């Protein structure tokens, strides 16, 4: 980063003495725009000595996916993005037949159950109910007075969401793949932790009169940042990072303006 071409040094107008055209020892002041010595690289040293990097929404050790980082002045934008309360999308993989103590497949086994009575239709019914109850929670925690006309207008457009602290809320959930004993869900949620999503998988198993553990939690979207914008491990170099930042800048600005306006 420090080897990249630096920005041009600041120029300042200074009155420099220069020999007068008349000759002799007379000195005249001539205005000239000269670079400021304080900006000289040998005086100032390398531009960046440390970088402040802040992290966006947490992603725990067993999960994977999009992780938003802010560099330098971007940390302030991180704070604004958090206050926007945008939804995150996860792809959660589950396995029927086992129940463990930490709800994932690497934990201590508690119980094994049968699962051949489970069908895709039953799973979708349970998911519809989860979505319904969370929709209710969305309206309740948004702290809008339900008796106003504007609450009705927002509810019609689907724009009601909690703008403050709230327990984890799932705004949408659907089944992507279903092949006993495995299944995959796509979950859109707010204010959640990955352990909560694993708990949701466990509870779906319980509701279907069996048990389930979570095998995979992958965040595919965090607000405006999708998997396409994110850099995989092979691309963790300066050029790709700068290109990615440039691509996302416009999206972030429009989203912030829209929500915080």
């Amino acid at each position: 980063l420090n080897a990249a071409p630096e920005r041009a040094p600041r120029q300042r107008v200074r009155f420099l003495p220069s020999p007068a055209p008349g000759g002799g020892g007379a000195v005249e002041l001539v205005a000239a725009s000269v670079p400021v010595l304080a900006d000289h690289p040998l005086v100032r040293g390398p531009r960046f000595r440390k970088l402040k990097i802040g992290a966006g929404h947490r992603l725990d050790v067993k999960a994977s996916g999009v992780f938003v980082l802010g560099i330098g002045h971007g940390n302030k934008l991180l704070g604004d993005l958090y206050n926007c309360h945008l939804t995150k999308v996860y792809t959660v993989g589950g396995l029927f037949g086992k129940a463990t103590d930490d709800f994932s497949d690497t934990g201590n086994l508690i119980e094994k159950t049968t699962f051949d009575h489970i069908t895709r239709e039953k799973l979708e019914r349970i998911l519809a109910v989860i979505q319904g109850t969370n929709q209710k929670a969305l309206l309740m925690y948004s702290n809008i007075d339900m008796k106003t006309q504007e609450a009705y207008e927002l509810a019609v457009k689907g724009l009601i969401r909690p703008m403050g602290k709230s327990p984890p809320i799932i705004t949408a959930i659907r089944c992507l793949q279903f092949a006993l004993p495995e299944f995959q869900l796509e979950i859109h949620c707010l204010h959640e932790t990955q352990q909560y999503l694993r708990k949701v998988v466990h509870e779906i198993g319980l509701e279907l009169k069996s048990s389930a553990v979570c095998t995979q939690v992958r965040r595919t979207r965090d607000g405006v940042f999708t998997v396409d914008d994110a850099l995989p491990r092979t691309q963790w170099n300066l050029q790709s990072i700068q290109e990615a930042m440039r691509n996302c800048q416009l999206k972030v600005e429009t989203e912030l303006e829209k929500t915080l306006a």
Partner: protein
Amino acid sequence: RGFCVSAGPPSTRQLREAEEAAPVFQYAGKAARRKDRVFVWGFSYSGALGIPSFVKPDAGWKKPRRIQPTPYRLETEDKISSAACGYGFTLLASNTRDITKVWGMGLNKDSQLGFQRSRRDQTKGYEYVLEPSPIPLPLEKPQQTRVLQVSCGRAHSLVLTDSEGVFTMGNNSYGQCGRKVVEDEIYSGSHVIHQLKEFDSKVVQVVCGQDHSLFRTKKGSVYACGWGADGQTGLGHYNITSVPTKLHGDIAGVNIIQVSSYGDCCLAVSDEGDVFGWGNSEYLQLASVTETTQVNVPRHLPFKIGKVKEAACGGTGNIVLTEEGNVFVWGYGILGKGPNLTETAEPEMIPPSLFGWSDFSPDTRVARVRCGLSQFAALTNRGELFVWGKNLRGCLGTGRMEDQYFPWRVTVPGEVVDVACGVDHMVSMVRSFT
């Protein structure tokens, strides 16, 4: 010294072996069926919820519960196929061939639940029935007839059977039970259950208004009896009718597929999707065709909203469901479009996004609509129940006591199949998820 092995953290192989050796539990076999349940909520002191411990606690720690704000499970022995809520009482009917087919609970001051013999005094009957009690019907073939549907009005109830006509009981001071009005008749503790069989074809639907009754036959004609001062009998006059008489007017010759009423206004839907209305129009229910406040002849309501599939009438507001799955409301009161819309004569559509429709689930649509006195209920094809309207004594089931100005989901632990709305309570028939 070689005899014992020290135990350390279990290796991966040991863990895997332990896991494979663990017993497998079975909670639901291949033949596990979804169970049918009944959930009730609302005002409980009249006994209409059917849970006696709410009114008279049977354990020391229980306190009397005046209002049940969220759905509460009602244990029944048989599968309930049809339920109806009246003004402070409920009727549950099952499709079985057993001798007891109909249970009733709630107010019984006009014998709307039949004669419930009191255990303390064998000559008198109960005035409040707190538990679902069987209603003895005078059937000719009790082990073959099936009860198709029940319906409740203010103080009378109708039971529709498949082969023995319609049984009516309760208050008959306006002829709503279909028999001649007896002056100074005492309805409390009365054993009278009247049977009605003389219709042009088999009766397929019975509907109770506040003090009148409507019968729809297989041929598509509608009969009415009862109070007519608001024209709700639709017979062309404002007098009492004590014998079911056929309706004419705009529905003469039209094949009606559904009738609905709860207060003093009535709506009928034909097989071509047209809506006909008659009765009270003080709340602009029929104002699209006439300025008069009482209409005593069925009139066609020319709405351009598409083919209508189902209609429901409340006390002051009406709701229809079209074939595309759109819901339209009109009338007076909390109609479901926010606090600003309190009355309209033309139907207004409620946006489907309020019923759970979104880009994520575009095939969620409303499948049924029901009406209470000042509440509306809509069931979606995903089995979710949405309610809105005046929350009288907690009847909406949302858990809050405030009125609800737009459709709100009721959390019921199951897929809601049908719901019956009353004045201050509701009953729903639910199938469990798995």
